């Protein structure tokens, strides 16, 4: 095989998810009536904002060679905290701040702060005490959801303050601001991962932690920051979730974890660590979102969505394995 064919094959493998996205969109547009509309496409982008933001954090940690299963529960807790503080109905306390816009940074700070704290807790246990990331974050997944249930008492908060709701209503170029926030996050974190020493170090740690350590990279510090970032971003996802649903319920966001997982893996991030980039993850999120939209449009019973999602996760992991084998053959 010549170096050039190898190179082009590799770039196809690296960007496989974008090709899949185009093919899937083309297929749906051709086969499903009413799919090919601007409204549908903006809808896909809008529907993928929460999942997208959550996937960023998950992807960071997986690229660095670890795992964070707690992102879904962290998002739910952040949403519940924002809901309780700034909702006026249900269990909401309806706190008002003046001027009104102060509520935006305040709610953001609460959401991201909660996420960052849980991320710090996870990171400390996993990195400093060298416990298994899978078990630690699985535990967090459970206890954080438990806190959501406990503080809400199983009830919900409704009617989020309009000053915060504004992000879901105001649109620029047909897309609500909340979706622009997700896109902005992808841009910022893509640059962070690809163009800064911190991102480069995370990729190297994911590839060969020992080598990175020997080269004088502060592995412990970087990994803990990755966990804190993942938590804070999950908090942001929760904030968006609260805005979208104008409140919070105790079972808000259940099942998002596996969608995020599927999006990350479909997006080309290897579960082995060290491989993958964030633009691909966004494509993965859009891909999942377009499939969801197709299911809705075809009028399939909602009960089947879960079956399809399950198979998607399976397909994603299979794809990952297949790609790894192909790469080994190319090498």
């Amino acid at each position, binding site marked *: 095989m010549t*170096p050039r064919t*190898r190179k082009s094959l590799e770039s196809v493998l690296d960007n496989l998810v974008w090709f899949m996205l185009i093919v899937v969109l083309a297929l749906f547009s051709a086969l499903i009536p009413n799919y090919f509309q601007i409204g549908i496409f903006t809808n896909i982008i809008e529907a993928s904002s929460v999942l997208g933001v959550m996937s960023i954090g998950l992807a960071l940690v997986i690229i660095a060679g670890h795992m964070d299963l707690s992102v879904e529960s962290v998002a739910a807790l952040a949403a519940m905290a924002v809901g309780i503080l700034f909702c006026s109905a249900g269990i909401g306390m309806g706190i008002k701040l003046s001027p009104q816009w102060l509520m935006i940074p305040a709610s953001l700070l609460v959401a991201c702060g909660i996420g960052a704290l849980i991320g710090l807790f996870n990171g400390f246990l996993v990195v400093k005490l060298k416990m298994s990331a899978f078990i630690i974050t699985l535990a967090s997944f459970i206890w954080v959801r438990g806190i959501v249930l406990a503080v809400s008492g199983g009830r919900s908060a409704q009617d989020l303050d309009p000053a915060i709701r504004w992000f879901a209503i105001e649109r620029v170029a047909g897309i609500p601001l909340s979706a622009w926030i997700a896109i902005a996050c992808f841009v910022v974190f893509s640059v962070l991962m690809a*163009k*800064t*020493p911190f991102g*480069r*170090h995370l*990729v*190297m740690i*994911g*590839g*060969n932690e*020992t*080598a*990175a*350590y*020997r*080269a*004088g*990279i*502060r592995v412990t510090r970087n990994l803990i920051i990755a966990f804190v970032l993942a938590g804070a971003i999950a908090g942001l996802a929760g904030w968006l979730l609260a805005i979208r649903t104008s409140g919070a319920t105790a079972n808000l966001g259940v099942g998002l974890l596996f969608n995020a997982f599927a999006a990350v893996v479909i997006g080309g991030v290897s579960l082995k660590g*060290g*491989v993958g980039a964030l633009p691909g993850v966004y494509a993965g999120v859009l891909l999942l979102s377009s499939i969801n939209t197709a299911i809705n449009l075809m009028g399939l019973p909602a009960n089947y969505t879960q079956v399809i999602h399950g198979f998607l996760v399976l397909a994603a992991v299979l794809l990952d394995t297949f790609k790894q084998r192909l*790469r080994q053959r*190319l*090498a």
Partner: protein
Amino acid sequence: MTEKLLVLNDIRKNFGAIEALKGISFSIGKGEVVALLGDNGAGKSTLVKIISGGLQPTSGQMLFEGEEFEAKTPAEAKAAGIETVYQDLSLCTNVDVVANFFMGREITRKIAGIPFLDERAMEEITTKALTSAGTRIPSMRTKVEHLSGGQRQAIELNRFAHWGGKLLLLDEPFAALGVEQTRRGLDMIRHVASQGIGVVIITHIMQQAFQVADRIVVIRHGVVAGDVDRTKTSPDAVIEMITGQTLTGAGPVGKQ
């Protein structure tokens, strides 16, 4: 060569009940190449790890440039000017040649206070360093996983030749190299040493030790079994020191 770069004084290391090092004392001068020889399990790698900050000695004292020194992490050793090439390579195969060459010391440009990688500058320096050392690598942007064992070894060696530091530790650096690459590697070591950098090389191959070293230090059962000038000894004598048949210039082997 008169000035001592690193002095080891009665370094001991225990792993539980096992005494890996039972009091190692020797020194390395500036610009001196010391070959560290010894049988498997003699304690060579443990010693190198202690100098490079990967392990802490149980007791003993190290003087680096005349001052007491003990690295808690490889980063500290590196900051002091001690570079290490390990037996198993320290490359991240999932990133490209440039990224590996600059691992942990990336060139950045600050834009609005945020450091961004200066890829072009790094690629230029890497290309220059590798081509001047005669290493042929098709593209600096190739991921290291696609390179051969020899090419990987060359990147690692060039990295140290380039960054230099004050003391270079090599733990069996030529295990995976061909004849020509080994010769180039040995040349590189002489070149590094001629700049006044101290070099400690661990090797199993007697011929290499005699080709490159100024002094040969033999470790046996965790003690220095011989510390001789290369010109004043022969491969046969060194082999006897390693296997323990004679005790030329030896420390207290076996009877303490």
